[in-house]
């Protein structure tokens, strides 16, 4: 079978769904049918690329030239497929959940909501399959613009301010990415992502290399939530919860860490990172982010904001793994993309279910709710345990690899950071569980569990977190993929 056009179709299918979604404005069931259909087709298309990716093959497609010598090109390499499987797979659950959520919460402008969601997914898959920086920029900016209507969805003062903050951060990042790419093009004459980097054989002075790296770091660090440029993420929690769940725990922020991986592994290359000492910068920033974000999370009474800071911390796990520049470390980082995705989406789903069902958003209001929402809170426990790194949840597995990777590189500090962060995670997540299970709640008599449209996705994502923890290679061979990807990045290095 000729797979050449599959990446393109996978990107376009949700974009094509936008029109039917908008035309079915007055028929909500038909409108949601289009979303689900697009999600299923997209996932199916991405899955057809998986067998090739497991064998280490890439599917390439060159479309028009965007600029002389810089084509709009797609390349479904193993890393891209890995990310696309996660994003498109979780979109299916999020779509079902969204239906339950927006109808349960009586949200306005639902058509705009579903249409923007579809565009976001196109952009995310586009990011996954970009073969070069210029294509990447195209989809990165598209994601910025498409997420904006979702951030400001409720159109209240707070949301509009969050939207402005979001745009200020991400548009600035986009411009820095453009200038960084232009510099790379100036020095190397190419922008194609290449395992091992573009700079081999190019002599660049230390300071200029450092400038290019910092530009890239600031550009992709915004979406990856690296401190101190994470500020938009907690503010963006003003968005409806499914948006926070898929975009601010999976698609958008993972695009950021995915970009970190692309930049480190495919633009600079692992040996350049090491020889110029650029990875030290990353390790320090990521380590500081992990600890600080966890500490700030303690202070948040709003459940979604606490989860947001937790996201900031966990994104830096991935960045840290990449920055270790050791095969096992990068494997751990890649695995944590998948692990954090299933765990954090579960937690956000729970937060949304609690909001729609009980209209409660603050942690101090959650006393005793496990009694009325047993499934939701059960899933919450699983997600929390995973984030804290307790086996057998998949969060443990990736963290174990991260720690091994640090030891492989003879580094102790990252291991300490990981241990401390695990304890901090317990510290800010378990009090919620304690409240829900062991404190006596008030005014809960008339409530039951949330709508099945929301609870079923919650349970499935929680179950996936356990399954992937026990069997990392289940269904999609995630672990083998991660190992292959990470070893391909060390291709240039003499052992």
């Amino acid at each position, binding site marked *: 079978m000729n797979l050449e056009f599959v990446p393109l179709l996978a990107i376009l299918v949700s974009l094509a769904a936008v029109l039917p979604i908008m035309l079915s404005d007055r028929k909500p069931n038909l409108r949601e049918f289009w979303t689900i259909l697009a999600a299923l087709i997209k996932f199916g298309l991405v899955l057809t690329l998986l067998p090739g990716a497991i064998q280490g093959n890439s599917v390439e497609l060159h479309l*028009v030239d965007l600029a*002389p010598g810089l084509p709009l090109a797609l390349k479904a390499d193993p890393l891209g497929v890995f990310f696309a499987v996660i994003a498109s797979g979780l979109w299916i659950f999020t779509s079902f959940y969204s239906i339950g959520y927006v109808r349960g919460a009586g949200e306005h402008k639902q058509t705009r909501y579903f249409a923007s969601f579809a565009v976001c997914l196109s952009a995310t898959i586009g990011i996954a399959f970009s073969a070069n920086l210029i294509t990447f920029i*195209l989809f990165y900016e598209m994601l910025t613009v498409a997420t904006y209507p979702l951030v400001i969805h409720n159109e209240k003062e707070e949301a509009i301010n969050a939207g402005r903050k979001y745009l200020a951060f991400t*548009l600035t990042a986009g411009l820095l990415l453009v200038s960084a790419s232009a510099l790379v093009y*100036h020095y190397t004459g190419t922008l194609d992502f290449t395992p091992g980097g573009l700079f081999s054989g190019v002599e660049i002075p230390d300071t200029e290399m450092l400038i290019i790296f910092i530009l890239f770091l600031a550009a992709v660090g915004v979406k990856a939530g690296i401190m101190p440029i994470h500020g938009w993420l907690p503010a963006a929690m003003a968005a409806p919860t499914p948006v926070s769940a898929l975009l601010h725990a999976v698609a958008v922020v993972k695009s950021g860490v995915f970009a970190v991986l692309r930049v480190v592994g495919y633009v600079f290359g692992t040996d350049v990172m090491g020889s110029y000492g650029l990875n030290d910068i990353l390790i320090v920033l990521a380590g500081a982010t992990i600890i600080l974000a966890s500490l700030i999370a303690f202070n948040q009474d709003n459940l979604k904001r606490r989860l947001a800071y937790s996201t900031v911390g966990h994104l830096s796990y991935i960045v840290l793994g990449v920055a270790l520049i050791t095969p096992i470390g990068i494997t751990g980082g890649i695995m944590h993309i998948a692990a954090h995705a299933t765990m954090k989406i579960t937690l956000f789903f729970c937060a949304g279910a609690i909001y729609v069902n009980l209209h409660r958003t603050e942690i101090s209001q959650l006393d005793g709710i496990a009694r009325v929402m047993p499934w939701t809170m059960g899933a919450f426990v699983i997600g929390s345990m995973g984030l804290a790194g307790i086996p057998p949840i998949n969060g443990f597995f990736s963290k174990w690899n991260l720690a091994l990777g640090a030891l492989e590189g003879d580094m102790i500090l990252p291991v300490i950071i990981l241990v401390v962060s695990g304890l901090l995670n317990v510290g800010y997540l378990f009090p919620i569980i304690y409240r829900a299970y062991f404190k006596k709640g008030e005014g809960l008599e008339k409530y039951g569990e949330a709508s099945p449209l929301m609870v079923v996705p919650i349970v499935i994502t929680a179950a996936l977190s356990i399954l992937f923890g026990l069997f990392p290679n289940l269904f999609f061979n995630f672990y083998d993929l991660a190992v292959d990807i990470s070893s391909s990045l060390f291709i240039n290095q003499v052992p």
Partner: protein
Amino acid sequence: MIESHLPATIALIFVLFSVLIPAFGIWRSELSQPLAVLGSGLAAAFSIIGFIQYLSDGALRYYFGGWEPPVGIEFVYDGLSGFFIMVINTVAFFVFIHSHHTAKQEFPGKEMPYYALGILMLLGFNGMVLTGDLFNLYVFLEIASLSGYALIAIGDRQAPYAAFRYLIIGTAGGTLYLLGVGYLYTVTGTLNIIDMSAMLPMLYESNAVFAALILMIVGIGVKAALFPMHGWLPDSYTYTSSSSAALIAPIGTKVAAYILFRIMLWLFGIELTDAMAPVTLFVGILAAIGILYGSVMAIAQNELKRMLAYSSVSQIGYIIMGLSLANPWGFAGALLHVLNHAVMKAALFMISGQLRLREGHSDISRFDDSYRKKYPWTMAAFTVAAISMIGLPPLAGFFSKWYLVLGTIDNSNWIFLAVILISSLLNAVYFFRILEKVYMMNPAKGQKSVSDGDRNEAPASMMIPTLILSGSLIVIGFANAVIVGILLGIAPF
């Protein structure tokens, strides 16, 4: 053998129609718009054919009456002039189609003078671009300017005052240019650009030549609204009628930019411009300041047309900055931005015209989300043009910035690079401010809420040109590699 007379044909079309429109317009005033559309359409078609011919056959020099220069006058149809007149005439064609309703509403009974003057101004623009003779260029400059002053005077109550101000400043600018031409003539004894460019390298130590360059840049800088000589522009574009603004804003300053290109890169040539590097650098710095100044001032405006006017000051800066970089990427970026900005600004001014037609104002503080319901297509076109102005891919505006960025990096000019980036952010501020209102702000209390039934879109004769122009921003974005390939071929490096 019409092909070989192509340069003259284009100019003669405008001469013909500038006579036909008053002649028929006196008899039947409603005939003047179709005639103007026909004239500009013919000219646009010929300029596109001409450009395609240039691509296959190379540049064309047309000697009037068979008199060879330097004795006679010639039109030079090369890549640069071909590209510019193609852009000018095509945009003008769409603007004339669009102006039917705004003209009738904003200045009833004066349609005939508007269209006659518009065609006359286009004659001036085309002549300036095509001519190969510096004095001839001045003559066309005055034709364009005088009809331009009159066009601007058609408008609000303040319009004649704004036009008068422009007239004073503009005439001073034209005179400075003429003075510069005089200096050059005294030292070289010729007015023909190609002829003169062969002589100037021998004279580059002459103070007269240096003074002439400065005088010409300042004089034309006024017309191009190069900072700090932009003072006439905001008032003129704000107070004039929507139709005049849509006609002049996208192309007027571009023609002045063309003259700067011609003078700095062709007449003086790249080696000589290098020898006068301080001048080039100075022009670049003025452009950079203009970019930032225009963007900041645009943020402060509450009137859509005025905001767009300041934005024009900023955007012309991009073009002139690209010119001052004097390298292939900067050149390609600047010329691509000529095309992009002409299309974007035309679309945006046409949209402001549509809003004025329906709402009677274009006051940003009164925008709210009823606009989205009343004018869904207009607002969609606005969104596309705005995002292109901000410079997000894959729209056209991104790519001109991309090439300009490459140009600044090639020159290691980090300050200019920073200026481009900062200005893009400022653009985002003033455009998202409007998008936010149009898509989200609930109408003020006391106004009845608008339902989808109250759709009140502008007429098709306005909507279609606007949509074509905004749609073409996407096409240009994807086709820019081809365009830039051609533009790099034009570059004199």
